[in-house]
């Protein structure tokens, strides 16, 4: 059974049908790209999976459990982690404290109050900062990081939750080509323990790191398959050449 099964998910905002009967399967350990023209429903779908809003109809099943109406908190506990599109790091806390906050989220209230895991988690927090090239900035405020660095911090925080499925909404937005390349390299090692859904405009980036692609257009799934199949798909070609 797939890690995430999306069946017939629809979502309407007033009169706009943002999602219209979307079916997607995401297998464990795969990187799944969501592409499509602006307004095709990519971010709406990602938010419905993360619980930022609920689908009107259809079901979302994660690890065999129906999470269609679960709160963000319940989804996070189940192993879903979302990296926001607009960077949502906590600007007035240090880079280190941002990651510590994510890392310690599994601790009980009593342990948090007694600060009993502050030392034990140091290795994990420092490890993540090291991996995402932020260790030298650990004591700086998150607000002082460059845009690209904030994106990495966001990804580090999302991974600190040890998710089984990570949702990335435009992880390379506002990055230089060099930073995009580094981001791809930073994401590769997580495949061993975590599946990924990425919404991204940069098709080169998507092609380089994704195994499977889903193309959305006007809230519907236009085509689905591995990267080569999608690149050959006539339907997709048409949408992307006529409308983009």
């Amino acid at each position, binding site marked *: 059974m797939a890690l995430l099964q999306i069946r017939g998910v629809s979502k309407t905002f007033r009169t706009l049908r943002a999602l219209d009967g979307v079916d997607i399967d995401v297998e464990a350990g795969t990187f799944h790209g969501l592409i499509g023209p602006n307004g095709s429903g990519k971010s709406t779908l990602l938010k419905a999976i*993360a619980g930022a809003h609920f689908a009107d109809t259809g079901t979302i099943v994660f690890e065999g459990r129906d999470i269609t109406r679960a*709160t*963000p*908190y319940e989804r*996070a*506990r189940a192993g879903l*982690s*979302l990296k*926001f599109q607009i*960077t*949502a*790091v*906590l*600007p*007035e*806390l*240090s880079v*280190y*404290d941002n990651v*510590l*906050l*994510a890392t*310690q*989220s*599994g*601790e009980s*209230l009593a*342990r*948090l*109050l*007694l*600060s009993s*895991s*502050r030392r034990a988690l*140091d290795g994990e*927090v*420092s490890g993540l900062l090291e991996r995402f090239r932020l260790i030298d900035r*650990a*004591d*700086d*405020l998150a*607000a*002082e990081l460059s845009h690209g660095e904030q994106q990495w911090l966001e990804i580090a*925080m999302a991974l600190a*939750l040890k998710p089984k499925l990570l949702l990335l909404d435009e992880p390379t937005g506002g990055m230089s080509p060099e930073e995009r390349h580094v981001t791809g390299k930073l994401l590769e090692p997580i495949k061993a323990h975590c599946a990924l859904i990425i919404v991204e405009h940069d098709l080169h980036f998507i092609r380089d790191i994704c195994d499977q692609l889903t193309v959305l257009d006007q809230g519907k799934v236009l085509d689905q398959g591995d990267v080569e199949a999608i690149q050959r798909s006539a339907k997709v070609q048409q949408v992307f050449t006529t409308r983009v």
Partner: protein
Amino acid sequence: MLTDAGPGLGAAPARTRMGRQAGRARAFRRVLPWVEAVALIVALAVPVVLSERTDLVTLATNVLILSLLAISFDLCWGLSGIMSFGQALFFGVAGYAIALVGRDLEFSQLWGTLPLAMLVGLLLAGLFAAFLLLGRKPPTTIFVALGTLTGSYAAERLVSGWQYVGAGNGLSSVKLLQFGGYEFVEGTAFYFLALALLLLIYAGARFLKQSQLGLVLAGMRQNEERLAFFGYRVQLFKALVFSLAGMVAGLGGALYSYHQGFIGPGNMGPGLSTTAVLYCLLGGSGTLIGPVIGTATVEVLSYVLSDIDAIKQFWPVILGLVLLTVVMFQPKGILGMLVSDRERIGAYGRRRRGG
């Protein structure tokens, strides 16, 4: 905008404005421990220096007791971003509770009534939190502010018309607080009792602020929604701190009732609730010691101003203007001038370089 310690703080302006303060922020010095040390020395010296003036010792005791109310509000707003306009409710109800226990059961032993007052504050605030905070959808700041304000207002009206609790006259000649055979009257002994309890509560609040739980609260103040996506039950944390704040207010209310020998409807109404907000904003919210300094400033100023013949008639106006000026032009309070944003907000892990 009252203070930027609150939850509405936008990320975007902070990024551009604070970015430039970076170099200075990294090497920030801790100022709060020094302020706390000075405050403690002053608090210990007061009864010695003023031993001849019982009226001033009484004033100082009052400051200590009302500081509990101010800390209670700081736990809500400064630490957790809960705008409570009803802290006096827990203060007043606990004050009435121990006054009634003294009157009807003739019991006023310290080891029994003070924990009782704390329990009353804790449970009542817990009940409020369950209503205001623990709904399926997270409440807005305004909703909580209005909810607590209404609670405070309704309680004041209720006791004003309730004969059993003295109606508009309140309860006077509250039975003196006892410890074994010793009775606490106004004076140095009561002062040191209040100081000891304040220190205990302060130490507890400080411990909470600096713990990993304090980090969660600091994160909540900046972006509540983000914290939910980390898997934190944000509203539960708020409800917990709100209940603890109610407990602290309850202790303050009991001490107030014993110290004044009186508790009335005004001690649980919006008037005192907003005074608590002022204590906190004036001193500097989120710093814990700030609210204590704010309380001392307001109470001492009121005392001095009301004693000057020339302005006896309109001193509240002057006090009001002073407070308005401070809140408008120094939204981080008196301590905001000494304490860096970074120290106020808190740094939790790894500050090896720079600091």
